[in-house]
């Protein structure tokens, strides 16, 4: 009997107990819907968080001095940031590349001083697409030039220092020779991100002014921040760039430059996967129950089929075909059932602002939007589909084996 014929018989067998099959299909659809929505929620949320984290200073990939990651210091610089930007852009994978100087500084106002992280930027090269705080001005504006003497403070930092717009702030840092250097700046902007660590501990400075203060050469920087369309390409890009930038620099992914965030995301994704595995096991148990009952109810029929010439393999194949049909119909039903909730959560999102506040919550210095949207990566849809097929086929294995082990003389009473 040809495979197509066996598949046709299996298809009809699937609908012999219509109610039971529909219940099983419902459980598959429910499981797939949960898996798709949870995975989609994670895919979209973590993409937003990673992209935002990249725009808060490091980029998806960072080119920096090989020793900077372990011991961040203004002594560890890269000499020719523009050349590295061009190398990165030439790969075709990088959408934006900006050179920066970042480090620690001591800020002093009239009677108070606070430590803070600074990022020295070229205002002509930066916008909200490379530096998210550009969108967070409460007062003032971005620097007009990279050589002006302004400073942009986080809102809480300004409050702590007791300064307002236009007031003087002295910044102090250590230059390449280990000498303490200072600069005077007037507050030209105050930003409020909603992330306490940024609002209380970040300031921006014009890059050429800082270069001059630190004694850097014209194109010297501590890092080049690179941005890609899809953060999942970061690893491949960093690996590729490592071979292009030479020994004087390393290309690092956001996972390496922001290990806390990477660890948090990995932990959350791991939790989601465990939850999805539990769902898969529960759904598979339901499928197994259906397939097993279906086989046990048909032992006599299998005995008759054996008697007229079906072999054990063919009976095994028949039940496995039934499992496969169950999986394929289950996927089709799942697609229909999941489409509506997915569309709503994709377009409108799930609003958690009542729980976490309208400003969202901060994770490793990154503010997560309180309205979570769903957008699943296409490859994860394929993975879920394959998982349904695999789980259904695995659930059918024992019932199929049992069908193939039927002893005809016991299954049928000939006389």
């Amino acid at each position, binding site marked *: 009997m040809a495979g197509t014929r066996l598949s046709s018989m299996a298809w009809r067998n699937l609908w012999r107990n219509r109610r039971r099959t529909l219940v099983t299909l419902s459980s598959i659809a429910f499981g797939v819907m949960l898996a798709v929505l949870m995975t989609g929620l994670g895919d979209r949320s973590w993409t937003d968080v990673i992209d935002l984290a990249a725009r808060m200073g490091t980029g998806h990939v960072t080119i920096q001095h090989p020793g900077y990651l372990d011991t961040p210091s203004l002594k560890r610089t890269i000499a020719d940031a523009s050349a590295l930007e061009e190398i990165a852009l030439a790969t075709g994978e990088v959408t934006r590349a900006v050179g920066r100087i970042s480090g620690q500084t001591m800020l002093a106002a009239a009677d108070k001083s606070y430590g803070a992280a600074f990022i020295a930027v070229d205002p002509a090269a930066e916008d909200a697409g490379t530096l998210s705080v550009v969108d967070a001005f409460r007062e003032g504006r971005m620097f007009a030039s990279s050589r002006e003497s302004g400073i942009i403070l986080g809102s809480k930092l300004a409050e702590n220092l007791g300064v307002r717009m236009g007031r003087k702030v002295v910044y102090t840092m250590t230059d390449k020779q280990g000498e303490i250097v200072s600069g005077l700046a007037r507050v030209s902007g105050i930003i409020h991100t909603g992330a306490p660590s940024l609002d209380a501990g970040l300031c921006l400075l014009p890059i050429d002014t800082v270069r001059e203060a630190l004694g850097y050469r014209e194109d010297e920087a501590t890092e080049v921040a690179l941005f890609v369309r899809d953060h999942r390409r970061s690893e491949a890009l960093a690996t590729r760039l490592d071979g292009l930038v030479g020994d004087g620099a390393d290309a690092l992914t956001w996972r390496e430059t922001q290990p806390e965030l990477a660890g948090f995301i990995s932990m959350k994704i791991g939790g989601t996967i465990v939850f999805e595995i539990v769902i898969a096991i529960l759904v598979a148990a339901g499928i197994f129950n259906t397939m097993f009952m279906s086989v046990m109810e048909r032992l006599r029929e299998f005995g*008759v089929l054996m*008697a007229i*010439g079906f072999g054990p393999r*063919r009976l095994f194949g028949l039940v496995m075909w039934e499992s496969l049909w169950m999986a394929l119909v289950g996927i089709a039903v799942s697609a229909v059932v999941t489409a509506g909730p997915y569309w709503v959560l994709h377009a409108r999102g799930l609003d958690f602002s009542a729980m976490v506040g309208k400003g969202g919550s901060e994770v490793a210095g990154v503010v997560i939007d309180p309205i979570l949207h769903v957008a699943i990566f296409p490859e994860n849809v394929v993975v879920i589909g394959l998982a349904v097929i695999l789980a259904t086929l695995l659930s059918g294995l024992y019932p199929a084996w049992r069908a193939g082990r039927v002893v005809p*003389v016991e299954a*049928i009473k*000939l*006389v």
Partner: protein
Amino acid sequence: MSTQNGSIVVLENVVKLYRQGSVEVHALRGLDLHVRKGEFTAISGPSGSGKTTMLNLVGALDRPTSGRVVVDGHDLSRMGRSALSRLRRDRIGFVFQAYNLVPVLTALENAEIVLALQGISASRRRERVLALLAEVGLEGMENRRPDQLSGGQQQRVAIARAIAADPAVVLADEPTANVDSETADRLLDLMERLNADKGVTFIFSTHDPKVMGRARRVVRLVDGRVAGDESRGP
């Protein structure tokens, strides 16, 4: 296929011992029987006489404890599971008391299932089975499923399925037990005709005096042995 002394079925000193818990049950106690090609034989006897066991052994569904069973020249005791499966498919037809058609298949598909297992092309299967279904009086009912057929019609499909592959022998389990008297007569007419016209060898087990009356040979089993063997003229 060569046969032993022209016999299509040979049982020689066949013993079948069942174990039910700690109790041994002798279903067959040295049964000897030869059935020739083209016979129309009824196996009768009281419950527990060994009819079921004998047909199971001849149908290659079970193995004897000792003794020899030969069907169409094949010594079943020397054959593996796959070979027995092929023998059942190619050389033995079964007609069951409860019809045992596959409920999701149509009459046509049920009747052609053995041919499909043999790898016969769809067009040849269809041609042969349509002719067979017409012969058993089911013309126009080819696309009906078992639940759309009466008991007698289902048994006709079962007979068509049993003879579709030109088996050496058809084993029929109380073929008229589940149908009314009139239908039973028509089924017996059909099987008699197939036996006479096509030379199909039939072995029935039966309690039904009407079936025994139509058989040309009646073998009576008692306590696992042949207690009587009566042949009648054609």
